């Protein structure tokens, strides 16, 4: 049958693409370990990770304490933001939705702004210095502030969404929360010490430079949420036809909507708390995957977003660290600068559906 052969061809193409992107992911992961301000050759990196390296202890520290946690954070962070964005685009049936549409990043930003800009601490300088001056709390304070901020916004969104029928209303509420919060942040920034403002704005650029203690929380949380998201594939597929159809086909819409919002909150909230608000991946990767895999089926898109999102996050992290120099670029700037042309290409290249994007 004609339909059958198409289905089989689709399966083959998806399989080949998944394998290709997995290989790309592995290469990016290794390159992210090898490249940096100090280039550490592959065989040395390998033996360090395998635990049988004898030699320069500083190299061991660089790989094990800096680059490995960073690469893991980038992999999981990229995957989490991409899948969160995918879920939001499907739930709201809006191609511009991203992982932060519910106000998660603005909540986190407010939390961090309150801590960094208002908290005591006399010396200025960079964020680590500032944090050191705040003593005992350290980066844990920033993480908790970000987490509490995003959790607070989400609680409000969840509470409101239990009573609201229209999903568009939730979308608009999320956006309005975002505006109100960013205006509060703007006021805080306006009246703050320039050094503190610099430290704060560094946080808003986002970074995957986090330590093992943070990775050990980020990884399990996002892994569980990614699995949940995959389990939600069937209702997400039904939602492609709209809420009305999904409900008519036997989906318990309110329960599924809460499940999708909680999953998104865990994914985007955890990443934002530890790595700061990272722009672009959440909105771009789902479109990239739909375009490349030519499907809207979430059973394919969720794994695709995990692999492609992780891969792009690793590449962005690599570029941000400018191999061979000791400089680093703001991560969000890199993701947008190098990601936007890719998406523009996908959008303009179009496909059999004409130009533009759709979900």
């Amino acid at each position, binding site marked *: 049958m004609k339909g059958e052969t198409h289905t089989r061809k689709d399966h083959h193409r998806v399989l080949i693409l998944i394998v290709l992107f997995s290989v790309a992911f592995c290469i990016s992961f290794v390159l992210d370990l090898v490249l940096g301000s100090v280039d550490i050759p592959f065989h040395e990196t390998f033996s360090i990770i395998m635990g049988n390296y004898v030699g320069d202890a500083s190299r061991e520290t660089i790989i094990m304490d800096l680059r490995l946690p960073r690469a893991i954070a980038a992999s999981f962070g990229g995957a989490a933001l991409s899948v969160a964005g995918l879920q939001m685009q499907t739930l709201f049936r809006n191609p511009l939705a991203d992982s932060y549409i519910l106000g998660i990043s603005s909540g986190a930003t407010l939390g961090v702004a309150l801590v960094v800009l208002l908290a005591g601490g006399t010396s200025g300088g960079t964020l680590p210095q500032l944090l050191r001056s705040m003593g005992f709390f350290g980066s844990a304070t920033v993480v908790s502030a970000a987490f509490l901020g995003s959790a607070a916004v989400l609680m409000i969104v969840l509470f409101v969404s239990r009573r609201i029928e229209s999903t568009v209303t939730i979308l608009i509420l999320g956006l309005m929360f975002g505006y109100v919060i960013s205006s509060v942040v703007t006021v805080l920034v306006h009246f703050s010490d320039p050094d503190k403002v610099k430290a704060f704005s560094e946080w808003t650029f986002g970074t995957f430079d986090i330590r093992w203690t943070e990775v050990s929380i980020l990884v399990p949380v996002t892994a569980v949420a990614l699995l949940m998201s995959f389990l939600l594939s*069937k209702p997400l597929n039904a939602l492609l036809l709209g809420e009305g159809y999904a409900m008519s086909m036997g989906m318990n819409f309110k329960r599924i909507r809460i499940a999708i919002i909680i999953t998104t909150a865990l994914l985007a909230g955890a990443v934002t708390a530890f790595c700061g608000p990272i722009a672009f991946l959440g909105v771009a990767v789902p479109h990239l995957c739909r375009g490349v895999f030519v499907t809207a089926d979430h059973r394919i898109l969720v794994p695709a977003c995990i692999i492609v999102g992780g891969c792009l996050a690793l590449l962005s992290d690599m570029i941000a660290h400018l191999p061979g120099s000791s400089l680093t670029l703001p991560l969000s700037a890199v993701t947008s600068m190098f990601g936007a042309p890719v998406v523009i290409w996908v959008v303009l290249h179009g496909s059999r*559906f004409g130009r533009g994007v759709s979900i």
Partner: protein
Amino acid sequence: MKDEILLYARDLSIGYHDNFPKVIAEKLELDLRAGELVCLIGPNGAGKSTLIRTLIGMQQPLSGSIYLSGRDLKDFTPKERAKKLSVVLTSPVTVSHLRVFHVVALGRYPHTGWSGVLSEDDKRIVSFSLNAVGAAGLTSRFMGEISDGEKQKVMIARGLAQDPSVLVLDEPTAFLDLPHKVEIMRILRSLSRHPGRAVLLSIHDLDLAMRTADRIWLIDKGGKMFFGAPEDLVLQGVLSSAFEMGGVHFDIEKGTFIIAPEERGSAVLTGEAGTEVELIWTRRALERAGYRICADEVTSMRIDVCRSGGSVIWSWQNGRSRLEFNSIGSLVQHLRTLPDMKEQCKEHTSIELLQQESSILNECVPGIETVIMP
């Protein structure tokens, strides 16, 4: 036979519960029987959509109960309900990167496991559903590639794949051109003939509803409902009173609503043998242009249809002026340039009328083949 009734409502009141309940219709007693196609009609704003939404469980009734296969709709879980009742909505489907097959396969939602993997049986039902709506050729096309009419067929196939006993459609023919409307109605009618299944749809197109429906549910502006075969409703005068509004009235002989144009006058229409079809359409055109067709000779305007050679000639005669046209279009165009007959009779003498007409005739009127001046 009670077991034949698939969906019924008792003492049903529909409407909205905002701050205070707004009743749209109350005390409704509805029955939908197996094997029938029922069209729900009514003027805009009468509450067709509210009734449909209430019957499919997307909106709570204000009071009363709805029973699906003899069981209260409230007692169904969404999944159980989806196995008995499927719905085609008016909301547009925007998904593009999904093959038609997979959209129809979503109809198997209540029957598949957590991941939605299709069994061989499920696949067979999907193919069968696509065949039933005549969309088998679209199976491997993407939703983004097909037309609105094709999408509607796909959505109906998806509803069918749910394997329901009741298929409810909210204005399935909206946004479609006439041939596609007719095709969709033909498909729905054939689906309703399946044993143990009934089809209920709301529709704006009265003519189509009257020609297709086994029974009509008519809801009027006051929320009053009437039931019956289309023809019975016509004879009872219910149809005309429900839809009557300024400028539109129901023509009981033709069974359609017509736009009543301002009457401009009357004419006698005659034709030689062999022009019967032309006469029917000429009559329509004249009525559209505002001329009443009468048999007597009260009026001075005559239109005669005759064949000459291979072509048809419409000759128009008013008093002593006479014109011939080779198409209805040019005839009507000429009639439109004439002054209103009723007003003319009141305000002008016949001489003035004649002068005016000849001045019009001197202008170039396209389509005139021969002008015979008096």
